């Protein structure tokens, strides 16, 4: 399912045009981004948790050349599916 198909389905369900739906999607993402930036996590029952995690810096070694690199710390958006959704996979 690509972005276009996704928007069509979403607009069909909410009874709005795909263009309007696209706008709302961007607003929603913007709202969630603000939450993540302030350190909050978005938790939706039946879907999962979307939160920002800090990955520590680490030393990685290139296996072929043996060059050691210090990879800097970073903030990563992570998704953890809810157990309800995992159950459906089986």
């Amino acid at each position, binding site marked *: 399912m690509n972005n276009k198909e996704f928007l069509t389905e979403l607009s069909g369900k*909410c009874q709005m045009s795909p263009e309007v739906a696209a706008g709302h999607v961007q607003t929603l*993402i913007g*709202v969630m981004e603000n939450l993540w930036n302030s350190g909050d996590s978005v*938790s939706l029952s039946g879907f999962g948790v979307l939160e920002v995690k800090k990955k520590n810096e680490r030393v990685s070694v290139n296996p072929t050349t043996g060059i050691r690199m210090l990879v800097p710390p970073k*903030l990563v958006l992570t998704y953890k599916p809810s157990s309800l959704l995992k159950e459906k996979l089986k």
Partner: protein
Amino acid sequence: MDKKINLSQLADLMSEAGGMSKVASEQFVKNFFDIISKGVLDEGIVKVKGFGTFKLLQMENRESVNVNTGERFTIEGHQKISFTPDAELKERINKPFSAFETVVITEEQSAELSDVEITKEELPTAESDNEETVRIEEEIGSVETGSVEAESSEAESVEPVVVNKPEAKEPQVKEITQKRGTRILLKIVVYILSLILVACLALYLLWPLVGKALIKSYADKSKPAVETVKPAARESIQVIEEAELEVEEAKPVIEEAKPAVEEAKPLVEEAKPVVQEAKPVVEAPKPVVAEPKPTAANDAQPFNLNQEDQAKALSKFTEADTVNYRIAGRLAVHTIEEGESLTKISNKYYGTKKLWPYLVKYNNLGSSNSLMVGSKINIPRLVAK
């Protein structure tokens, strides 16, 4: 900060930002995530522009080990939902840390690390030198306090280094590599100290076995000294009894020495907690510890000897090397070379500097200053009395 935002809260925020009614926005958010989860389950992949990609991944069977029992078992293949955020979104999320770059670690920095490994090797050998002395038990105590302290203070000093401020907009990458370096150094030092601690504890536990053997061997050495003071009077059985009594007497004396060491501890604790100074701290109690040893030697022999005899026995014991020989003929003729002294010659022929007076005696040398380069002196053959 660190709040969990649920569906209704998200819908509220959404309606504020997007000009939708609360009911409509809640419906919208619900549909948004429902379609994503449905799409992932049905089609295996959902792409949302500006957000990211949800994908269904097939995990193969794999082997694993039960940590508790060590049993091998297979983890069944299963499906997993993965999420990859959009490159743009990823970048925006990581904005606070965007100033960091991956750095290649240079030779210098890895050399710094190997330096520490060398000192790590030095430390245990210094420790093993002391293992053969009677003091070791006391040292264990002091080393323990020293290293434990050092560890705790390190733990404190490590923390500020670890802390990374997400607020820092323009941190220096170099500074971070340095911080990383010092942290690794600290870790290694902590590791070394804990190794020493473990070694000392092992020794401490084995002390009853090792210690007895040491004290016995000491008692055996002191036997001949006792015999020279009163040669005829002692019967061999008595001597053996003495030795055994000495062993028993020596034990409480060694234990008495402990309080002295414990007194030294507060001094050690006052010492600075910095990592580099941990080594001096560990060594500090030694002089204090050294004192109880002579007392142990003195008190070990009071049974059959009065004070005077005891003093003689002691002096004879220490001078045994220089008095207990008699000259029996000539061993060699030595031509004196430049830079040689009687002690050096003595060391060369007898393996000890102490026996140089025999050279003076045998050659009738008035003063040892009168030696000339090229002159010859006779080396006596020494036989133990």
